[in-house]
């Protein structure tokens, strides 16, 4: 589904990703771990198409298309979803309006009929109940005045409604209390499907107690230095990242 080869990317002339390769197949859950500054968020942003980052080499293919040739909105309509580490507050843009516009952009791309207001509301309320969100959030400005946890739940709500093919969730677990972590994990697990793939970018192992990954990769210095199964995450929790950095430099 997603094939990243030798990806190199920089921001403001500073190289962040230095030859990263990753293969994600349908049905799989991958966890990308690594210390601060290792390039995890850059990877997520580049997959989603943020042009603040310059791709200087390598390729990303998504289901037979060259992802790097596509605008962010084309990627989104094709089923790539980025859950932001810092969801943006957009006062004056109604949350429900954005959700419905996003869903219909995606449905139009899939040759499906647009949902009307009634169908949308039913769907949104159902997903909000699953995530333990108050329906009043629908009528607020996008993330406007939301707490950190509410913003993350709102990201998962968008994902649950859009049902992407590939979800890249950037530090979705950071800043969550245990109840919020559980409902966010429920939302992620509900999306697991043989036709879909999920990439979890996370600094800590704790989300992985709730969402069990098939593969764990460690990113350091802009490339993947170690891959393994879920036991790798436990090892990192125990030993920290330094032993891998040393191993990589050796």
């Amino acid at each position, binding site marked *: 589904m997603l094939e990243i080869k030798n990806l190199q990317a920089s921001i403001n002339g500073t190289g962040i990703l230095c030859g990263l390769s990753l293969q994600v197949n349908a049905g799989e859950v991958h966890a990308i771990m690594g210390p601060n500054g290792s390039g995890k968020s850059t990877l997520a942003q580049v997959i*989603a*198409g*943020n*042009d*603040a980052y310059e791709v200087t080499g390598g390729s990303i293919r998504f289901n037979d298309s060259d992802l790097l040739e596509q*605008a*962010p*909105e084309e*990627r*989104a*309509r094709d089923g790539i*979803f*980025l859950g*932001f580490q810092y*969801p*943006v507050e*957009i*006062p*004056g*843009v109604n949350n429900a309006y*954005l959700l419905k*516009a*996003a869903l219909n*952009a*995606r449905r139009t*791309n899939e040759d499906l009929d647009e949902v009307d207001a009634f169908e949308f509301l039913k769907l949104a309320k159902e997903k909000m109940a699953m995530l333990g969100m108050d329906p009043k959030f629908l009528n607020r*400005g996008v993330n406007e005045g939301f707490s950190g946890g509410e913003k993350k739940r709102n990201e998962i709500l*968008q994902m649950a409604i*859009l049902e992407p093919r590939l979800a890249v969730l950037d530090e979705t677990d950071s800043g969550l209390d245990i109840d919020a972590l559980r409902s966010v994990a429920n939302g992620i697990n509900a999306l697991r499907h043989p036709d879909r793939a999920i990439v979890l970018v996370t600094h800590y192992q704790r989300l992985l107690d709730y969402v069990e990954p098939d593969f764990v990769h460690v990113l350091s210095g802009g490339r993947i230095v170690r891959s393994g199964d879920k036991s790798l995450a436990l090892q990192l929790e125990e030993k920290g990242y330094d032993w891998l950095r040393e191993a990589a430099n050796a």
Partner: protein
Amino acid sequence: MTSKLAMDALRHTVTGIPNDRLTPARLAALAQIDEQGLPTTAHEDWKYTDIGKLVETSNQWLADDSKGSPISDDLIESITTQFDASWLVIRNGVVDTESIDNFALKQVDVKLLTDTETDPGYEAPLSDLNLALLRDGITIQINASADENRTIGMLFIDSAIDEVGVSPMRINIDLDENSSASFIEYHASTGQRSHYANSVVDIALADNACAHYVRIQNRDLLHGQTARLTATLGNASQFRHGAFDFGGRLVRNDLDIRLTGRDSSVSFCGLYLAGEQQHIDNHTRVDHLVGPATSNQEYRGILAGGARCVWNGKAVVHSGADGTDADQANHNLLLSDSAEIDAKPELEIYADDVKCSHGTTIGQLDANALFYLRTRGLDEASARQLLTRAFAQKIVAMSPIESIQETISEMVAGRVEELIARGSK
């Protein structure tokens, strides 16, 4: 270099207006102009706005002795039917007396200015020009028992299809004690020739009166306007004002508020949407003459193309006006590199117990917000439009007459779409 007003031609035109009650006032205004001239960019208050083009239009109009091009009823109806209001109409600077005769709101007295004893007053240079050329104006008196749910519409409509035009317009509004009313002042114009509309509105709110007032300026992009509104507030009176500028080539609005009564409050907001070569200048001034009293204002601007806008918000807290609370804010969104805004908050404080604040920002669309929307499947143009409209919507939502907010919102959406479509041209 500002052009000079052709005084001989002006005198000829003014003295040619048939004698009536206003004749002495016209002649006094003429003498005032003769003595002081019109403002130039050498005046601090006019530093960024050169009215030379309006003076040229006036000279051309005086030379041509033109009477204005016809205005169809359809055009008028296309505007008035958008709002639930009873309308008074001034066409090409001439009061449509039929609209006064047909005006049917209870406890509201509408008259021609010449049929009253009202002193039209003149205290600003362009108000002098307005008065010197004024054929007639309108007075509106709101009685305490007036139906507060009805809105009084004032349509200033002009046409310069065949001939250059100048329209002086004046309205005096008195709100009695304990009365309340809503007003829409709508400016529209059409035609390819140059046009200059000069309006003066004077509002007096007696004790406990309340007025909600929205001004919508939607003139042709070739035309010019100067509009002055003066409001004087009595004890515990409230004035809310919203200003929306969509059109006009050269526009200068002056909003002058005098808080003369204790516990009076004024709240006003404005939105200017400018592209192409539009120049829109909003000068506001609040005089806190007594305290306690409050004033607050927020203006926002969206500038595209080669637009140039000015916001100057002045609050003067006079000696003894203790308990004053004055806030002002101005935020601008620049959609092109060549657009320019001159924003200037001014506070003059001569009292001790005062709370004043001001803030001004100038920026572009938030790149993070734009990217966020695009990752949700919105194309770039839609995302830009959505964010720009959201920026403007704050002012629409603050504006005083709730029942017309949706209509204004649609006008904003339409203009924003135009500004973005034309990009940085």
